[in-house]
């Protein structure tokens, strides 16, 4: 079982490495969206500081979401997904592997970048730390939940945008707790409550989501 998951992760990471662009560009998308906001909203530092948690979290959410369509689409198009569905193991485990790989490629880099971008918004030290921590806990949930949406919209025309339509409502709790944790820190309340709720979402996202995802994949293949 672990071997299978490892094999899936290994393959997906190798594919990501081969494309190179994938990892680097996901990060830069995050950077660019975050940098767009001051351009749209205006450069006053006070205002920017207030916006920071919301903007960073929304950007992380969008960056993750953008990489979702490719989670299964290519495997579907070139027939690999059929092969995975016909493999003699529960499809859910394969999905779990793919979710983990997706997080490593699309989630983790955001976490690492967040402190640097926070500085652009003039955030203080502890707020930066909580921001990073909240992203570290929250992004796995984004990958897990996103997988369900990616599977449901698989092979559906115009899937990419439909996908965001399905997934964003599910992302809202993550966004609220994530940005809330930082806000709470800035305003002097502790972030613990928010963070533990976020942790619960992440656990659910990673370990529960693969099973509906697998079911959706089987439907898409019919």
């Amino acid at each position, binding site marked *: 079982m672990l071997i299978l998951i490892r094999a899936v992760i290994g393959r997906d990471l190798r594919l990501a490495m081969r*494309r*190179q*662009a994938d990892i*680097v*560009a996901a990060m*830069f998308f995050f950077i*660019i969206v975050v*940098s767009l906001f*001051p*351009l749209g909203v*205006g*450069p*006053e*530092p*006070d205002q*920017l500081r207030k916006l920071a948690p919301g903007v960073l979290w929304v950007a992380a959410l969008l960056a993750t979401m953008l990489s979702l369509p490719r989670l299964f689409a290519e495997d579907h198009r070139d027939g690999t997904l059929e092969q995975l569905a016909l493999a003699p193991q529960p499809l859910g485990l394969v999905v779990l592997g793919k979710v983990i790989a997706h997080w490593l490629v699309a989630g983790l880099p955001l976490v690492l970048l967040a402190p640097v971008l926070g*500085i*652009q918004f*003039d955030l203080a030290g502890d707020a930066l730390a909580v921001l990073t921590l909240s992203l570290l806990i929250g992004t796995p949930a984004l990958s897990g939940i996103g997988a369900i949406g990616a599977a449901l919209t698989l092979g559906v025309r115009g899937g990419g945008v439909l996908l965001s339509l399905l997934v964003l409502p599910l992302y809202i709790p993550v966004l609220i707790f994530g940005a809330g944790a930082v806000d709470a820190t800035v305003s002097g309340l502790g972030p613990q409550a928010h963070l533990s709720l976020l942790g619960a979402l992440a656990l659910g996202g990673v370990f529960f989501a693969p099973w509906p995802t697998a079911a959706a994949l089987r439907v898409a293949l019919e």
Partner: protein
Amino acid sequence: MSNRVINWFRYASPQTFYPLAGRLIPWFWALAAIFGVAGLTIGFLVAPTDAQQGEGYRIIFLHVPASWMSMFIYLVMAFWAAMGLAFNTRLSGMMASALAPTGALFAFLSLWTGALWGKPMWGTWWVWDARLTSELILLFLYIGFIALQAAIDDPRRADKAGAILALVGVVNIPIIYFSVKWWNTLHQGASVSLTKAPSMAALMLWGMLLCALACWMYSIAIALMRVRTIMLERERHTDWVRALLAEKE
């Protein structure tokens, strides 16, 4: 007329350019070192303290050359890109790809030194000022160029795609600069305005110019080195590269 064109194309062929570049590189390194030492000596040892900014202003000797180079290299890159599209010479694309990383490096250094300057002077690492913002976008443009070329494996295709992007980018740079400037001045508000450097003492000016020259020489030397590597890699099947490497044994 046609004679001169042919002549030009002769130097545009990698086979003739490679040894030429090899002979030039040490000279540019030497010049870079001389200018660099002179500039830094003036800047850090001789130049007086700035009345308003204290000693912190000395970052200027790094920051301004880096900023200038980052902008200038983009122009040169776009020039080579245009040549490549117009005349379809192999050298042009190679030059453009050889310049991009150095340009990105200087854009990054400009940001880095600027941020380190901003903290003591303005009290913050970053403000969304026109110049700063355009420099950041310039870095994005460089990275986009490099990423695009890296994502295409066929070098000829990569060259052409990169050239198109570089040209579109060069049209866009002035637009970006003025739009940002406009946006920012209209907003004003709480933003910190850039403290104008005082009319510079002649010594400071000299130091800055020498440092800038050093960066120039450095960029040329690096670009020539990189273009030579790119040539070897791309032309590895040609007889001249085989002969060259056989010679080295």
